[in-house]
């Protein structure tokens, strides 16, 4: 019954999405207003049906309705209710369902918010949404049906992949998917602007908040993914440069580039083609990522099982790319601007440089990801491209980008004189050099960390210096106290100060990565009961091995007593979990975080026969915690940037808004 409801809802939504594609075309042909409202209604109808289908699937999961194959594959009777719900994105079909659901929620929001505005482009925007939605619904209805029934009904299900039984899995995929789906909004507006031939900045202004929101979710999705990897995968790292991780990270790069370069377009009416390309690339990369994850073309720890879906996504990717760039090429004449700059040294040019670097990083990662395919296609011999390559090739680019974070927001628009550079950067440069020397004296002698710390310090110093100057002026002008001056400043220019806070967050993440990359210590040893392993300041003593019977598995824990510099910091118990239907055990690492460093313990084996001997892997990773704290700072910055503005702050007014006023 549930299966029937769910499947019918998907089919109905699919039919509605086809109507949603046809209606704007009919509107364009006939001018009949009926088609305008029906395009909107089709989106809202899809929203209703997809919500129904998704609810049906969740209902089936929660009630362990094993007559539905997806439920039988991803839950058991023993699964706690929490993980039954997360089973929605535990496997291929459900994750596509979640994607479609988020997509249609975004579409519905857009259709709702722009009910009266954007009359000319809106039907086309909705058409793009309907096309993407029709694709996902088609896949759900005909190729990868989450409501496929199984007969006879099995007595018990197979259960979720044990690695997914973790609290972070609650948030990681939905966050990432929200980011991916969010990019559809600026993409749809860009395509609509191209279709109607409005080559101005309107679509950028309209989608500004949407883009920042999507970027934010993308950032958070990646960070929580890294956190999950660190926390659950139990190998002690947070980023492995796995193809699927790269696929999730790649859209972030053009999205970030886009956020910066649109500012140049808003001010100078140039880079039109460039910005359109960026958003098209970003959107295509989200589809590319889905393709990689679902096709099994590249081997990855995170891949879903193979099936026809990979091929369907490849075809869709091809169609998206050709349609987008074909339209762009077709409209190129319309987009010709008269780019002019006052000077080669200006904020405009730094933003451009930032774009070049971000796109270079994207290109490097993309090439590295698909190079095994390329090499095998050309030479016939497979190669591997992994962390050593990606670290060597991208770290310099990212360092340069961090450096630009100091320059870009401070250097003058239009034209920066030497005097302007001196005023903005002299003191911060001095401060960062002083910090570099201090760090050098404290014992950091390696080149990369030293350079990294200097660059990071420089960014922080410029931001603090700039804010201090602005605060002083504000206090002089308005006689406010520091706090209210700060609030006024941020309120007056939310995007700028939100952006600066985000930059601070990025710097924290960079420091965390730098520290943990350069100064991690790893030791492995087999300990008997009472024996001690020394790593750095830590002394780790095996107290006992114990076994615990858990609802879904057996758990073998090594209990270790840990002291740091002689001070007892408690017991840590890394474990191995044995699931009945898994060939090898699943590790459960534990870690103790401080602001300075993380102690990370992995139980890699034990032996009952040899009297309670446990093999332990110990990692001491400095500064990791700052990566997660940086994420928190980014949340704050984004909130500042997208906070609803006060009326008179509307900087650039869209023509539709003017139309209403007039």
């Amino acid at each position, binding site marked *: 019954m549930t299966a029937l409801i769910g499947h019918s809802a998907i089919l109905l939504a699919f039919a509605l999405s086809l109507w949603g594609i046809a209606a704007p075309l009919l509107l364009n042909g006939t001018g009949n207003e009926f088609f305008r409202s029906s395009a909107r209604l089709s989106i809202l109808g899809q929203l209703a049906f997809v919500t129904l289908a998704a609810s049906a699937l969740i209902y089936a999961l929660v009630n362990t309705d094993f007559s539905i194959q997806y439920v039988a594959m991803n839950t058991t009777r023993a699964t706690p209710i929490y993980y039954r719900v997360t089973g929605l994105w535990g496997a291929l079909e459900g994750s596509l369902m979640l994607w479609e659901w988020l997509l249609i929620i975004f579409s519905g929001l857009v259709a709702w918010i722009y009910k009266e505005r954007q009359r000319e482009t809106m039907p086309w925007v909705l058409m793009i949404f309907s096309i993407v939605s029709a694709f996902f619904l088609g896949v759900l209805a005909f190729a990868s049906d989450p409501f496929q029934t199984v007969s006879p009904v099995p*007595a018990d299900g197979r259960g979720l992949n044990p690695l997914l039984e973790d609290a972070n899995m609650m948030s990681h995929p939905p966050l990432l998917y929200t980011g991916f789906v969010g990019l559809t909004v600026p993409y749809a507006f860009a395509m609509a602007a191209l279709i109607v031939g409005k080559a101005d900045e309107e679509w950028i202004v309209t989608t500004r908040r949407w883009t920042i929101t999507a970027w934010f979710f993308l950032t958070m999705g990646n960070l929580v993914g890294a956190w999950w990897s660190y926390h659950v995968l139990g190998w002690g790292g947070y980023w492995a440069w796995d193809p699927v991780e790269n696929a999730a990270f790649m859209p972030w790069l053009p999205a970030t580039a886009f956020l910066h370069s649109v500012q140049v377009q808003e001010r100078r009416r140039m880079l039109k083609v460039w910005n359109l390309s960026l958003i098209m690339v970003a959107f295509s990369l989200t589809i590319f990522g889905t393709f990689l994850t679902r096709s099994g073309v590249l081997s990855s720890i995170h891949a879903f099982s193979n099936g026809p879906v990979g091929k369907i996504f490849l075809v869709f990717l091809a169609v998206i790319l050709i349609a987008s760039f074909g339209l762009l090429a077709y409209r190129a004449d319309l987009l010709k601007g008269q780019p002019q700059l006052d000077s080669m040294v200006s904020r405009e040019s730094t933003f451009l440089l930032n774009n070049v670097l971000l796109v270079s990083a994207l290109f490097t990662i993309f090439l590295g990801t698909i190079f095994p395919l390329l090499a095998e296609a050309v030479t016939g011999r497979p190669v591997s491209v992994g962390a050593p390559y990606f670290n*060597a090739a991208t770290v310099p680019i990212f360092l340069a980008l961090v450096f630009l974070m100091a320059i870009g927001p*401070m250097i003058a628009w239009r034209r920066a004189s030497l005097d302007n550079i001196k*005023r903005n950067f002299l003191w911060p440069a001095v401060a960062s050099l002083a910090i570099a020397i201090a760090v050098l004296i404290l014992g950091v002698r390696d080149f990369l960390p030293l350079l990294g710390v200097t660059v990071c310090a420089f960014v922080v110093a410029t931001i603090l210096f700039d804010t201090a100057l602005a605060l002083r002026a504000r206090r002089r002008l308005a006689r406010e106290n520091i706090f209210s001056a700060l609030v006024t400043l941020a309120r007056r220019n939310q995007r700028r100060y939100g952006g600066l806070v985000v930059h601070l967050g990025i710097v924290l993440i960079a420091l965390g990565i730098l520290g943990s990359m350069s100064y991690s210590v790893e030791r492995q040893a087999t300990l008997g009961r009472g024996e001690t392993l020394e790593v750095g300041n830590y002394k780790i003593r095996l107290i006992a091995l114990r076994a615990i019977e858990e609802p879904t598995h057996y758990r073998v824990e090594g209990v270790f007593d840990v002291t740091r510099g002689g001070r007892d910091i408690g017991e840590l118990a890394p474990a191995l979990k*044995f699931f009945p239907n898994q060939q090898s055990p699943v590790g459960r690492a534990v870690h103790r975080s401080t602001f300075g460093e993380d102690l990370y313990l992995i139980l890699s084996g034990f032996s009952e026969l040899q009297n309670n001997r446990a093999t332990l892997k110990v990692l001491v990773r400095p500064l990791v915690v700052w990566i997660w704290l940086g994420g928190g700072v980014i949340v704050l910055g984004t909130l500042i940037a997208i906070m609803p503005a006060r009326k008179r702050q509307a900087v650039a007014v869209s023509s539709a808004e003017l139309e209403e006023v007039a």
Partner: protein
Amino acid sequence: MRREKLKAVLLGVFLSLLTAHLLTYSLHATQPADVEQQAHAIAAELRCPVCQNLSVADSPSELAQQMRASIEEQLRQGKSPDEVKRFFVSKYGDWVLLAPPAKGFNLILWLLPAVAALCGVILVGFALRRWARKKAVQPTDAAYPSPPAGEDRRDFLAAEQARLDTEMRELDFDFQAGKLSDADYAALSGELKVQEAAVGKQLAAVPQYIAPRHPAEKPKARAGSEARAPKNWQLATGAAFLLLLGLGLGVLLTQSVRSRDSGDTMTGDFLTGTQAAGPQEATLARGRAAIEKGDFPQAIEAFKQVLTADPNNPEALAYMGIMLSQAGHKDGALTAFDRSLAADPNFPLALWGKGMLLYRTGGDPVEARRLLEKVSSMMPAGPEKTEVQNALTQISQSPGAPTTAAAKPESVPQAGTGSAAAEGQIAGVIDVDAKAKANLDARAVLFIIAKPSRGGGPPLAVKKVPSPKFPFSYSLSAKDVMMPGAVFSGKLYVTARLDKDGDPLTHSPEDLAGEYSKNPVDVGSKKVDFVLAPARPDAR
């Protein structure tokens, strides 16, 4: 003059970034001194051959452990890190290196990004210079602003004015904050004012107009953009082209991939709609055909494929069981049959397979008899039915077997493979005490556990049986061992637990538990029979 200086500064910045780039490359050449650290560094650069995508350093796999040991040993023998890496390359090829060596085709990987980045920077540099030159030639651009014709003109100019306004405000504030010198401020604000004036003049020249308020006036509003909006035939052509391209690509992909040799498992059914009529039918048919031909590897592959998609497919499980029993793997076969019967208690093939297996190996004549009687009643007459009936006669003739639950497995004729398979296992019958039997739950799950010690400590082997039927005859063997590599031997404590609702989260007092009275037992023991009774609440 000043501009030249700035250029020099910018050049300096680029050069220093470039050196940074080069230096970080060279950093990877420096090696730590300590052998353990050195081994770790090497392991981090090698790819684990059996993992999805992990380095040897990070992989928990057995092979990676052995490779790490090998690295350390070679280092201790005095080999250099490069020699160690070369050793592994000679065994696994360049594939094993996570950073491909920069030679031959791989140069593309190493050089292309750097070249692309450099080209990007140079291109942008040139573009910037050109755009700046343009401005320099016409200091106050005569063509500024250049609004579009038509009704958008006013919008454009108004937006431009608002923008200039903001820019002016920001410039003022920056000047107040002391970020600009007087001269810079004067120059920039002067320019802005000229532009503002130009925009203001044009704006004044645009006649006021009344924006359309009603949808009815729409056609007029569209007039301005009509020239640009695409005709429907254009859209239709584009869409048709895309559709054809997509379909072509899809068909091409699936057809070509399908015709691949069947050694791979990625043959998908691309939108063929076989989903509705039993998704696995085609694969199942392939497996059946392979069994007919006696091509077991092919059959195993087909059924495994079915089971990945549908882990409880009774037919695939039954066939797996039959192949396993033919290969002499009794336990594996029994597990497969039991899973098949759990999915469909009346699946004839599984009934037959399990019945015949139990009959031949003498595992549990009572159960064998029950199964064979059931399947016999479902079979049409023929040689196969005769075989089953012969087996049934054999069972009832064997002494002591007919009806009592305490059957003597030893007394049943043994088939050739049975004796070998029975070694290295613990077997017996578990029953439920009479009182508890009345209110057994169909969803109950039986856990049979063998531990090397009483009480705590990890279990050596566990068997999970959903919906068991009592008396339940079981066997534990090396197949049920939880830790890969652990040896199923020695003296073991055998216990069992029946979880009432199959949900171990809820430890209901009605859960049943029991253990063998003469624990511990030797591996190889048979008749390890015991009875389950309500567990005491504290007996966990």
